[in-house]
């Protein structure tokens, strides 16, 4: 049975556990390899970490996030939109603090996609001193199968 639209809207405002995230050098090296680009010089991380560091540090695994929004990974949830702002470069080896919350849910029906929910969430990445390093806003699409 498909989760009700009102139940989904109750999720708006839900704060994620948050936590710390360290840009591990080995992981950064592999991430750059996956994106087919050399590591940036000077110990700086690739800007994709405005997404990666915030998502990975939000305090929920992808599996747990799917469960929070009443979705099954086997139904093929995926990215809808992304926005990020980088205030200072992210550094390899640094540990950051992540916080965030669900900011919106939207139920839609597409001719091809069928019924789906879009879940919007924002995440902040801060340095050890509380300085704002990056913000990301994301919308993920969750198909709703009957």
């Amino acid at each position, binding site marked *: 049975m498909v989760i009700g639209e009102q139940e989904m809207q109750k999720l708006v405002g839900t704060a994620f556990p948050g936590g710390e995230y360290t840009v591990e050098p080995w992981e950064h090296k592999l991430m750059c390899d996956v994106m087919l680009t050399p590591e940036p010089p000077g110990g700086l991380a690739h*800007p994709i970490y405005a*997404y990666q560091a915030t998502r990975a540090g939000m305090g929920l695994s992808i599996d747990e996030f799917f469960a929070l929004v009443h979705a099954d990974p086997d139904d093929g949830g995926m*990215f809808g*939109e*992304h926005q990020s702002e980088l205030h200072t470069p992210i550094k390899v080896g640094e540990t950051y603090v992540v916080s965030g919350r669900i900011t919106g849910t939207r139920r839609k029906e597409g001719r091809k996609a069928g019924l789906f929910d879009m879940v919007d969430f924002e995440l902040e990445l801060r340095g050890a001193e509380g300085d704002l390093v990056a913000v990301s806003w994301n919308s993920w699409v969750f198909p709703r199968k009957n």
Partner: protein
Amino acid sequence: MNVNVGDAIPDWEVKDVSAEKMKIFSALIRDPNPIHIDAAAAQALGLGQREINQGPISMGYLINMLGDWTGDVNCVRRLKIRFMANVEAGDDVVASGTIMGINDGQDELLADCEVWLDVRGGVRAMSGTATVAIPR
């Protein structure tokens, strides 16, 4: 660096998007979504014939394009992307962009750009905007 409104950003291409890279990415971020690691799962959901490239990897291609253009991948100040269609394993894709505006700020010269990623011979996979710092 001389930049003007309307200038095209040099394309950044990927030939034969790799399913193996998708598997590495799934492992790195502990993503259980089968559409990235199993072509049959993507087919069963009607999403494509082969493994579906993760959105952040494709977004990375756009950032790489901006980095190759300016000489510094950490030139990106803002990025706003809409995911419009899937990139599948084996696709050839090309990241492109155009300068829409130039702002000489107090601290740095900024270019507002339209950016997009197309599948060769196919659909537009993503489009959006980026603000990047330009070397003076």
